């Protein structure tokens, strides 16, 4: 059975039908839920919001939704690889490549990035004492562009097949000569649209952190998560344009018949350079914010100042700078010559120095502290040894001749999962558990949290440690199967078991959210963790203007100092006065929608969709130009929990 959808033949085979069914059922469930609990109004308020913490919640929830999807892809991949020459459902050959590509692309661009950006949205303005980001409208727009891009990549599976060329999408394989199905068009357009959103976010955070700090919050007094956000934003700012150009070339080559990336007419290596000029900083875009989260969490739960604050900051900046100087190490086997390879091997190794400084500073922050093992702290402690494994294998990969052996083998797969899961994902969980009470006013259950942590960590090691050995035994990455005589069966089976354990661990997390939502006590107060930074001075959840009066800050760990020496009160930097807040608007959502329509029109080559998309986006932007002066003047009242200013 099959039908045509804008010229693309869609064959209704079992997995596609399952895809349609699940979309349909989830849609129905969502509608029923929203109607039954009368949540349409709340949803609409979220759609219209431009407020940083609500946009943060939107980012987090969309990110987790994509996490479930990409996790499902991972389980499919592991099920197919469990046994040699296995035939799990339909996921061999092209279908396996679809799963592998969506898993990678989604996890990086639509899970790790939005979850991190979500946490930034939630925490950064609070940490620096700002009312909102510098450009709230732009912030909402970034979210909806990201969602539009993510939606494009995700629906491609049921509209003619997902992209198949891996998340790196190397040409010539990704050109229409070798992958004529629309999958890779969805890749180029989806990443382009969400990339614009990410770039806007970066500009937004840069301006916010530079211009919007509360009086006394000097750069060298900022919490480490804010520092990490600053450096990350710089990386995004300069890395994403390279991806934009690469995707532009890919789109023109695939859809408009140019030959810039083709092997015979053009030059295929242009793609690899542009992609990795973006791609390596991207790795640091993912890990630096996690470093920031760990720094904040570890200081809070060890009840101790960060060891070597300034060297931590310098290390962050150094890692960010060096992140741009190492991309050739992804291309050692291309044959660019020994000089290139040697230079980039050394620059790659040198990143280990600032990273090492950070690790030891964390260790010495713990030393002499009073450690409590709450869930966020467990995730941060689990990170240290796990990430060090990923780090040392990274140095091993930098040794060029040895990398000829590791390159594109399962050793690399093991390495980057140790870095991304052992670093970024653990950091995200630590951050979510840590800032959850600030966001919602209740805590996540600690016992379930610990179950979540231990199952996740053990599952993680069982899944990814064997991969190093598989690589050393000669298993290349991105293969959908292997032969019985390869001697890889036991390792792969173990890895599959671990993957399903991690899947189960995610279920515990979801159950924890539900349980805590139902049963956790409300009114946790403004400082449930006995925190150190100024986000813990205001009520949870914060009022929309965050700080009725901005605090005056005299040191890093200002709130901790205030609790110790100032009777738990921070000096106010201003009198109570009306605050200019942005207006709610649905325009960002509509721009995202028109972007989606327009990009979809480009993919299926239907001119009227393209026109509608273009006119819609331009029209809304023109409209916004005449409405951007609207502000809400909010007169704040001090909250009893507010810890800024003298006793009232």
């Amino acid at each position, binding site marked *: 059975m099959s039908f045509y959808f804008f010229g693309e033949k869609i064959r209704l085979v079992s997995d596609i039908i399952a895809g349609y069914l699940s979309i349909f059922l989830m849609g129905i469930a969502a509608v029923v839920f929203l109607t039954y609990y009368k949540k349409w109004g709340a949803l609409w308020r979220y759609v219209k919001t431009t407020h940083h913490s609500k946009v943060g919640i939107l980012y987090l929830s969309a990110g987790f939704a994509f996490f479930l999807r990409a996790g499902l892809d991972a389980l499919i991949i592991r099920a197919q690889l469990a046994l040699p020459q296995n035939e799990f459902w339909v996921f061999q050959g092209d279908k396996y490549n679809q799963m592998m590509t969506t898993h990678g692309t989604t996890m990086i661009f639509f899970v790790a990035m939005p979850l991190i950006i979500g946490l930034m949205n939630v925490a950064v303005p609070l940490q620096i004492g700002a009312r909102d980001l510098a450009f709230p409208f732009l912030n909402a727009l970034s979210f909806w562009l990201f969602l539009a891009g993510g939606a494009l990549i995700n629906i491609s599976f049921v509209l003619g097949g997902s992209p198949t060329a891996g998340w790196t999408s190397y040409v010539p394989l990704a050109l229409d000569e070798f992958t004529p199905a629309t999958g890779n068009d969805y890749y180029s357009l989806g990443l382009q649209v969400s990339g614009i959103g990410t770039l806007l976010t970066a500009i937004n955070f840069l301006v916010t952190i530079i211009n919007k700090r509360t009086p006394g919050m000097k750069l060298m007094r900022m919490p480490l998560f804010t520092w990490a956000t600053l450096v990350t934003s710089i990386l995004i700012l300069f890395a994403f344009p390279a991806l934009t150009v690469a995707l532009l070339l890919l789109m023109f080559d695939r859809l408009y018949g140019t030959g810039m990336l083709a092997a015979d007419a053009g030059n295929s290596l242009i793609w690899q350079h542009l992609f990795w000029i973006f791609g390596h900083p991207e790795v640091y875009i993912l890990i630096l914010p996690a470093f920031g989260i760990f720094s904040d969490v570890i200081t809070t739960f060890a009840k101790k100042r960060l060891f070597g604050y300034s060297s931590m900051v310098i290390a962050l900046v150094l890692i960010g700078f060096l992140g741009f100087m190492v991309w050739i190490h992804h291309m050692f086997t291309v044959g660019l010559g020994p000089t290139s390879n040697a230079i980039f*091997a050394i620059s790659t190794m040198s990143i280990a120095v600032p990273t090492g400084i950070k690790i030891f500073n964390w260790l010495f922050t713990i030393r002499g502290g009073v450690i409590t093992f709450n869930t966020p702290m467990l995730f941060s402690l689990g990170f240290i040894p796990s990430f060090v494994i990923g780090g040392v294998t990274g140095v091993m990969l930098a040794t060029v001749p040895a990398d000829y052996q590791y390159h594109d083998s399962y050793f690399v797969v093991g390495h980057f999962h140790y870095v991304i899961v052992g670093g970024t994902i653990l950091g995200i969980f630590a951050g979510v558990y840590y800032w959850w009470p600030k966001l919602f006013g209740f805590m996540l259950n600690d016992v379930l949290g610990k179950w979540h942590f231990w199952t996740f960590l053990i599952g993680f090691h069982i899944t990814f440690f064997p991969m190093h050995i598989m690589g050393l035994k*000669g298993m290349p990455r991105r293969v959908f199967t292997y032969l019985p005589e390869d001697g890889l069966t036991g390792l792969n089976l173990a890895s599959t078991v671990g993957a399903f354990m991690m899947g189960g661990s995610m279920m515990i997390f979801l159950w924890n959210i539900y349980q805590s939502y139902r049963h956790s006590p409300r009114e946790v107060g403004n400082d449930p963790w006995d925190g150190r930074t100024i986000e813990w001075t205001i009520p949870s959840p914060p009022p929309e203007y965050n700080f009725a009066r901005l605090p005056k800050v005299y040191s890093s760990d200002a709130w901790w100092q205030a609790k110790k020496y100032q009777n738990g009160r921070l000096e106010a930097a201003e009198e109570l006065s009306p605050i200019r807040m942005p207006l709610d608007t649905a325009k960002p959502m509509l721009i995202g929608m028109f972007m989606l329509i327009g990009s979809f029109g480009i993919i299926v080559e239907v001119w009227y969709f393209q026109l509608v998309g273009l006119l819609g986006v331009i029209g809304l932007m023109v409209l916004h130009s005449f409405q951007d002066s609207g502000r809400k003047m909010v007169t704040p009242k001090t909250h009893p929990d507010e810890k800024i200013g003298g006793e009232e």
Partner: protein
Amino acid sequence: MEKMNKFGVILFLLLLTGCSPAKWDVLNPKSSTAESQLSLIQLSIALMSIVLITVTVLFTVFVVKYRKRPGWETETENQKPGDKRLEITWTLIPILILTILAVPTVLDTYKLDRETKASDGALVVKVTAHQFWWEFDYPEKGITTSETLHVPVDKKVIIELTSEDTIHSFWVPQLGGKQDATPGRKGKLSFVPNETGVYRGSCAELCGPGHAYMRFHVKVETESEFKAWVDGMKQPNKTSLTDSETKGEEIFKGQCLSCHGSQGLEPKVSGSPAPHLGDFASQKRIANVLPNNRDNLKKWLDDPRKVKPGAKMPSFKTDFTEEEKEDLIDYLMSLNVKEGEKR
């Protein structure tokens, strides 16, 4: 606790696989190149173990010692928020460790490059990657083959790589690290095999749906065996054919030869669109997927793409009668390079 997990995992895996690291391909090199790569791997593992152990020990000690417990309530506020001497120490020691690693890395990188460029009497093999098979062309010997690369032992081999379609990557773990085969570019790789045997090789760069089965073997032979094989390759396959084999040969000439070359039937030209079948009968697996036997061959002829996703070969299910298929299979199963024994 973490540490225990990791040890548990490693132990569990070793039991499960029942093998020792000495048998892992990369750690069990059979050529000069792979040996020098292994020595770097060992050096880096040793150096990195120092780092890993230091961190793990400190981590465990600190977490256990400073956990909150009755009797451990300390003033954390007045402790030093940093220590320049300590921080300089853990900046300098990593730099030292990395220098120990960087020097041989750079030297080896240049050494490998020099070895690859110096052609001093080496055997040059032009390797062309196709979706999803490898073509091995010996320009000095005037022969072309696929699936199994034959090389003599203790003699330098230079592999010149290129690709016909997408990017592939040539990897034989036991003989040395990989090099990309990029269309429109030349990649180069060299090694001196030092032990006879058959080694597994594979494509390491995603090249399409059939990537997983884009494998090959390298057969390292003694000098005389290699000579015999080269001579054998230059001969027609077989002098006397049975009836059914003759019929099969006719079908082969009519239907298969336009894509597949076969030794002795047609002059071998490099760049043919499908693998060469000169020694088909000696291959372990059909198209690297199914064990090579008559039943599987029939399965393959009926629907190649079902057996190997993305295979370029069309289905011959309806083109031949059952009888013709049997004849063709008879013929294919007779294709073998009988080294030195031939006419």
